[in-house]
């Protein structure tokens, strides 16, 4: 009996060494409408999953594009729009040409590239590459500039930062510290994708989502989210397995 206990302990410690601490998977739930506000969910094939701080995501099960987001299950409807920002740092196996890409959901208001006139509705962006350097990106975001000042950063294909409404009450550039990218974290095989997701709090139970691509070659994703809604803020790590 004693030798079996020793063997089991040995096997357990070997497993622990081999797999580290990140062994959890997305956990399926029956009804996403009742999750606590601010629970990050993964949606796949009509089902929702809750996520531990570090999870292993199987590409075979979830595909090469994962939908992440929050359920809009606020108790009361709000007339004022807000947003949350997400930053995903993906580590890949091959060198990359683009190291920063930009995603913006529909519904934002921004300045055109050159005109000085009023803000107007802007189109969604689905991964515009930023062609400038990380230093250019960081210096543009160093001192709390507004979307108007940030619309012409060298390397930007089209203006990205925007306002949640025409009254300019809340800008996606509001937290300059969040948009800083630490050059020490970046390698030739890393891509940071910045997301801004606009929504109006309401008990609609709609999914406020964004897509993260985990195509072949993506090894891991570090996700950081911030929002004025405290419950939305947090970070996750995804280990991508075939």
């Amino acid at each position, binding site marked *: 009996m004693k030798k079996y206990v020793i063997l089991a302990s040995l096997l357990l410690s070997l497993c622990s060494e081999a797999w580290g601490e990140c*062994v959890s998977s997305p956990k399926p739930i029956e009804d996403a409408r009742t999750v606590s506000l601010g629970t990050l969910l993964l949606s796949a094939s009509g089902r929702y999953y809750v996520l531990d701080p570090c999870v292993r995501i199987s590409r075979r099960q979830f595909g090469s594009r994962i939908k992440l987001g929050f359920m809009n299950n606020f108790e009361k409807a709000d007339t004022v729009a807000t947003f949350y920002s997400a930053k995903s740092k993906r580590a890949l196996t091959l060198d990359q040409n683009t190291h920063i890409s930009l995603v913006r959901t529909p519904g934002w208001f921004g300045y055109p590239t050159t005109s000085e006139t009023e803000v107007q509705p802007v189109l969604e962006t689905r991964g515009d590459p930023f062609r400038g350097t990380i230093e250019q990106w960081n210096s543009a975001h160093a001192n709390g500039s507004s979307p108007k000042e940030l619309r012409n950063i060298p390397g930007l294909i089209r203006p990205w930062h925007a306002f949640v409404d025409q009254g300019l009450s809340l800008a996606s550039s509001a937290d300059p510290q969040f948009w800083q990218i630490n050059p020490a974290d970046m390698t030739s095989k890393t891509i940071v994708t910045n997301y801004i997701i606009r929504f109006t709090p309401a008990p609609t139970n709609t999914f406020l989502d964004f897509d993260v691509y985990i195509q072949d070659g993506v090894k891991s994703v570090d996700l950081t989210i911030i929002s004025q809604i405290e419950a939305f803020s947090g970070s996750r790590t995804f280990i991508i397995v075939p």
Partner: protein
Amino acid sequence: MPAPIQSSDTGLDRFSKMLPADVTAAFISTKASLVSAFQTPEQQNYPVVISFFIILCLSPLYFRYVTKIANRWHRYFLVGTSAVFAISLANAQLASFLIDAIGALHIPTETVNPTVSAMSAILPILWTLLISQIALSALSDKAVDPGAPA
């Protein structure tokens, strides 16, 4: 409610007595109560899975003393059928529970979701359409309670 199989039962009678509708109904109502008591899905996993194990442990006694099924093969099969139906009814809670349990052993859990999903979809069909029929044919004579009232 499953009753003892008698030698005079038709094939359909015998088949219906292999399906534990009462235990399955008990699990469905227990699960519904727990889901409404624990409002967030993250809190529901453990209560639902624990209630599943409790019902599974109690079911042999229920079949033996309440439904008066004296034949142990019949009882084993009814317990197995209850488990199959429960896995299908609470697959989300079971998968989450297993991910926690296996993860606690530091073993990767990415195969848990597809395995439980496949089991919950395939097992009830296989069990009802195929395994019950095979068991019925194979155990038909063994499962008959000679002393059961007609």
